[in-house]
């Protein structure tokens, strides 16, 4: 396509958007994200990623010559609002597919709406219950908490650590991961000898850590949570002079965690997507070009450090784009079939191959075990 025609197309797209009405050639995609509220640090990069890449796709000529029109709603982390927006997307906006559901709670609230109306839905939340059991129109891009538990336990096993203490937040993420870790621990040969919890907004966890310290036989500590809780936990852990190996979840795979926890985070290990260690990946790693491109584009456009959460939105949008491209149609049913047929898609979270039985399509190898070093960086430790 020549420059003039693409410019003309871009101009046409802009005109169509200005007209407000759904242009016959535009493909309407919906998104319900928690761009504000308690999950804003997840939803905000997701929103920015979608805006950025929809613009990029349209500038490059759209999908099969059709532009994408993105309709976004902010649920503020509230599951009730999310469901209302889901209904609005289906009934008023008449979208052909939806990305979003920043949290497991908002995703679960919206799933019935999309299943009933047969609109494909790609969730960006971690909980395994979103795709287990498999629902025909529901997919997701992030790793599950069960996979995080399995990955961490495998690493502990490899280091000869068998008896561990579990400390989790009582929020949705922490509670769900605690449940999954307790479930898969016996099969992994891990014994959980202490099981402590704390509130998501707690500012001091020294009592819990003191209890763990007093428990006989603990060989390692796993802190399953996201947000500020793990940062407080890690700082208290160092304050009490704990030297047992500390494991964190994929929920703290962000620079913000390292900034909050400071030098106390050194040595902590966590499973995370390749996106965080883009430069350290082997040159022949299939993910290297994808994660490098996304990281550079996101950081240039927003001025913020990249996080895995925005990466989930990137994966969701690209899987959808390729599915629409293959379907050669804007029919929700055909798009669904093509999402399910996704094979060997290289995203920021890993290589995705879906099937009728697997609407996530990632395996354990897509997680990298990282360690935090020098109060600043992640290094691959496997």
């Amino acid at each position, binding site marked *: 396509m020549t420059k003039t025609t693409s410019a003309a197309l871009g101009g046409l797209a802009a005109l169509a958007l200005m007209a407000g009405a759904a242009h016959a050639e535009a493909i309407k995609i919906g998104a319900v994200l928690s761009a504000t509220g308690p999950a804003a*640090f997840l939803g905000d990069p997701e929103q920015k990623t979608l805006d950025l890449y929809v613009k990029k796709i349209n500038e490059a000529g759209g999908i099969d010559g059709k532009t994408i029109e993105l309709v976004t709603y902010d649920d503020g982390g509230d599951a009730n609002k999310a469901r209302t927006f889901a209904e609005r997307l289906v009934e008023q906006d008449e979208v052909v597919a939806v990305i979003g559901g920043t949290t497991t709670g908002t995703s679960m609230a919206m799933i019935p709406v999309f299943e009933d109306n047969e609109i494909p839905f790609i969730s960006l939340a971690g909980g395994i219950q979103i795709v287990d059991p498999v629902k025909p129109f529901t997919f997701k891009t992030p790793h599950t908490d069960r996979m995080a538990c399995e990955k961490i336990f495998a690493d502990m096993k490899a280091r000869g650590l068998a008896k561990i203490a579990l400390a989790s937040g009582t929020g949705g993420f922490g509670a769900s991961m605690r449940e999954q870790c307790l479930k898969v621990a016996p099969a992994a040969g891990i014994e959980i000898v202490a099981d402590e919890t704390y509130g998501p907004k707690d*500012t*001091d966890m*020294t009592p819990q850590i003191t209890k763990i310290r007093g428990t006989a036989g603990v060989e390692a500590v796993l802190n399953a949570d996201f947000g500020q809780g793990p940062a407080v936990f890690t*700082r208290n852990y160092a*304050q009490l*002079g704990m030297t047992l190996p500390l494991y964190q979840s994929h929920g703290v795979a962000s620079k913000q965690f390292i900034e909050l926890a*400071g030098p106390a985070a050194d040595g902590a290990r966590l499973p995370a997507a390749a996106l965080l260690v883009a430069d350290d990946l082997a040159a022949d790693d299939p993910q290297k070009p994808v994660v490098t491109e996304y990281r550079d584009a996101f950081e240039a456009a927003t001025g913020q450090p990249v996080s895995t959460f925005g990466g989930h939105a990137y994966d969701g949008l690209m899987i959808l784009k390729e599915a629409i491209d293959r379907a050669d149609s804007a029919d929700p049913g055909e798009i669904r079939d093509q999402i399910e047929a996704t094979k060997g898609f290289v995203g920021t979270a890993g290589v995705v191959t879906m099937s009728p039985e697997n609407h996530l399509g990632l395996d354990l190898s897509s997680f990298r075990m990282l360690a935090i070093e020098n109060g600043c960086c992640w290094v691959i430790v496997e």
Partner: protein
Amino acid sequence: MQEFLQFIFSGLTVGAVYALVALGFTIIYNASEVVNFAQGEFVMLGGMTTVFLAAAGVPLPLAAALAVVATVAVGLALYAFAIAPVRGASTVTLIIITIGASILIRGAAQVIFDKQVHRLPSFSGDAPITLAGAAILPQSFWILGGAAVIVVGLKAFFEHTLTGKAVLAAAANSLAAELVGISLRKVVGLSFALSAAIGAVGGILAAPITFTSYDMGTLLALKGFAAAMLGGIGNPIGAVVGGLMVGLLEAFGAGYVSSSYKDGIAFLVILVVLFAMPQGLFGRAKVERV
């Protein structure tokens, strides 16, 4: 013993912050009978403003001072634009107004600052001090010391200055105070300014340990209010004791009983105390004089 000491330090550090919030409640309540649920937002404003000024290159002590000034300005604005115009409204109306104000301040903070969690550097480093086997962060001493200085300062202000005595007089009997020439407007305005300043100082001192984010105020207001009720609302000593007790109850609950129920344990004890002593530990029973 070592465990016990560790729980004590944990409880006192957390409790000192609750105590400062409870003190803020008490001062405004005494001067105007308003329960100011935006008190937690003052703590947030202190911490967040300091973080953002420090990030902009302002030296930490100056940033902290400016944050206190800014928070006081917000406190005065809250009084002048939301509380003063509805003078004489019922207490419930005033409480609803303060809840509305807290939502407004939180929303504004989300836009003006951001939605992330932030931390200030510790004032005297992060190396813990070991006392009989229990580890304490130097910042805990800053929080406890800061709270102590504020309490002593308040006591001196109320007992040894004319303005302080005027506030006390207005608290005791607002009509009589007005008759002898005390401006109720000024006294209540002053109490909002004082509460805002105390909240802001608490927020700044605690930010290296508890972190700070735009939505931290709600929970603090709840805990601080519980502490004020436990101590007997209207009594400054009660507020401090109540705050420390709530902190200690949480730490002991988490340490000795179950970390899942620690908030429940704290609130259960408060309920039991209030059943036995409805006016709180240090509160006076309200006597209607005919």
